[in-house]
């Protein structure tokens, strides 16, 4: 599959505009293989980016490559090595899952016999076993999502684009879908680019995140780096809380009061030592000390709010 250190997506100044509406605004990306989350509010440019990377639409400006292939001139070759699971309903009703996934395998270049065998195997791995001989219109939403996933990976792509794969699924189905996606990435080695507005899904599955807003890349990096240093240490004391907060601030800590509890920004692990030493110096008893981690949702809200603050007058999608 993909080399561990070679970026699967590289773009320089990638811009897509529809008339005066800028859908993607000069994206510079270098995305490593793995499980990549594509986050952003509606109209942020996620779908446009996927279509560009699949070579389905041409960029207005800039260049980009997927798996080392140019998106402007090698779209067919890119699509040979990638899979795509759209967000919307996209399955014909009066065909069996086995027939349809087999047909999609043939459309991706597999010979007829290999396509049939492969469809059966992949449907089984996606949790559609005996049901594969039933018409798709008889399937539940969860089963349809599995069939959509199966058609996306039936030709064994190096990279698969998943657009809202847990959309409309019940909690149990969602769990299983996330588990499937995890296996595709971790055990099978297919790079997954997961576009979702469910931040919890992205946090569970992905190890790298791209955050788009109004066509701009507002944040990117590994999930661990985005979450690191962003949480708070909640400190409860017996004694003068105001004096204690003042002393901490004087020693360089960022302190706020939340619901009667001191929240010290967890920028590094030495903050714990700072709290302990300050308590000792002021002769204050520490009653409680717990870490409140930052979630991807916190990062998302902060970044989108910060990005929305600036307006350069350019009309953007969304």
């Amino acid at each position, binding site marked *: 599959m993909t080399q561990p250190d070679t970026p699967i997506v590289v773009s320089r100044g990638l811009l897509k505009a529809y008339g005066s509406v800028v859908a993607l605004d000069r994206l510079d990306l270098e995305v490593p293989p793995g499980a990549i989350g594509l986050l952003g509010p509606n109209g942020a440019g996620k779908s446009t980016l996927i279509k560009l990377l699949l070579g389905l639409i041409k960029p207005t400006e800039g260049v980009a490559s997927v798996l080392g292939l140019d998106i402007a001139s090698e779209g*067919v070759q890119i699509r040979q090595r990638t899979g795509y699971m*759209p967000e919307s309903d996209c*399955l014909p009703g009066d065909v069996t899952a086995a027939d349809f996934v087999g047909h999609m395998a043939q*459309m991706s270049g597999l010979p007829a016999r290999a396509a049939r065998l492969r469809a059966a195997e992949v449907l089984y791995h996606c*949790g559609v076993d005996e049901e594969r001989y039933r018409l798709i219109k008889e399937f539940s939403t969860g089963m349809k999502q599995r069939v959509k996933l199966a*058609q996306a990976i039936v030709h064994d792509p190096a990279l698969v684009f998943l657009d809202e794969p847990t959309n409309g699924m019940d909690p149990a189905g969602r769990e*299983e879908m996330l*588990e499937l996606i995890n296996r595709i990435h971790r*055990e099978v080695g297919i790079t997954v680019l997961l576009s979702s507005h469910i931040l919890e899904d992205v946090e569970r599955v992905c190890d790298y995140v791209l955050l788009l807003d109004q066509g701009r890349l507002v944040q990117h990096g590994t999930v661990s780096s985005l979450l690191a240093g962003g949480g708070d240490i909640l400190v409860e004391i017996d004694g003068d809380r105001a004096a204690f907060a003042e002393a901490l601030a004087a020693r360089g800590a960022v302190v706020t009061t939340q619901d009667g509890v001191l929240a010290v920004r967890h920028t590094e692990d030495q903050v714990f030592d700072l709290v302990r030493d300050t308590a000792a110096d002021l002769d204050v008893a520490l009653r409680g000390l717990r870490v409140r981690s930052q979630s991807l949702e916190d990062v998302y809200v902060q970044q989108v709010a910060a990005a929305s603050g600036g307006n350069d007058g350019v009309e953007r999608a969304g």
Partner: protein
Amino acid sequence: MSSVPGDAGSAPAAGPYGEIFDRGYQHYQGRREGRAHAVRALTLYSMRRALGVKKRWTAKIIPIFLYAAAFVPVVTIIGVRALVTQVSAQLAEGFNYSFLAAAISPLLLIYAAAAAPEMLCDDRRENVLPLYFSRAITRVDYLLAKVLALGLLMGSIAIVPLLVLFVGNTLLADAPLTYLRQHPGDIGRILITGTLLSVYYAAIGLVIAAFTARKGVAAALYIGFITIETGVVEALSLAVSGAWKDYLDLFSLGNVPDRIVQWLLGPASGAGSAPVGAPLQGWTYLFTVAAVVTVCGVVMHRRYLAEE
């Protein structure tokens, strides 16, 4: 234990007939074909769906009716000629290629009205296009497969019955080899006529189907458009006078197939002569066919380029 099959570490299940092993996900190591293979696969898939293969029985009614209507008469006539030799010559004269092709022409119109929407409307209504366009084909490849699928289906009705008649004529002739020597161009004319009619009807049917997701609407629009357009042109040609009046016949979409049939297969055809009932020479109608197919191709291409 997960309900997702194929988890690593799945234990073999021992039983009286042996053990079942979960081999886990296997990467595909086999041969990978190119775009031509995908176009062929889509063509065959589209043909099967239009014929109602693996669909409910109601989807098979129209294809069965049309094939019966196209083949039963020619097989019956040949059978009667073979069994009742006294009427063979008269039947052969009356039931010739031109007669058969003219009789089949309305069937082609109905077939195109029924099959063209099957080719395109379902893909749009069920939103399957994003899946096709995310495969290793271009939009032109997609359209090519659809045109090929409909063209081959139409050809099976436009050409095969005539070929059956040709085989019958040859076998029922007093001297089959002499008959073959005396009719060297028949097969060529049958193939050309059938191909022109198939492509012509298919192009108009597909371009109309490209603009709606509802099959019934597409079929009604198709038949309505051909019928009304032909009526309007004929009424116009009656109402006007002048040398250019004859050229209106080139725009009569419903009559062009009959002109082609008469020109290529009819008894009055020949270099420098007009088809029976036509004001212009036969080859001029080729331009109409070429123009219609070209315009339909360009319109469909633009329509599908705009498809997201």
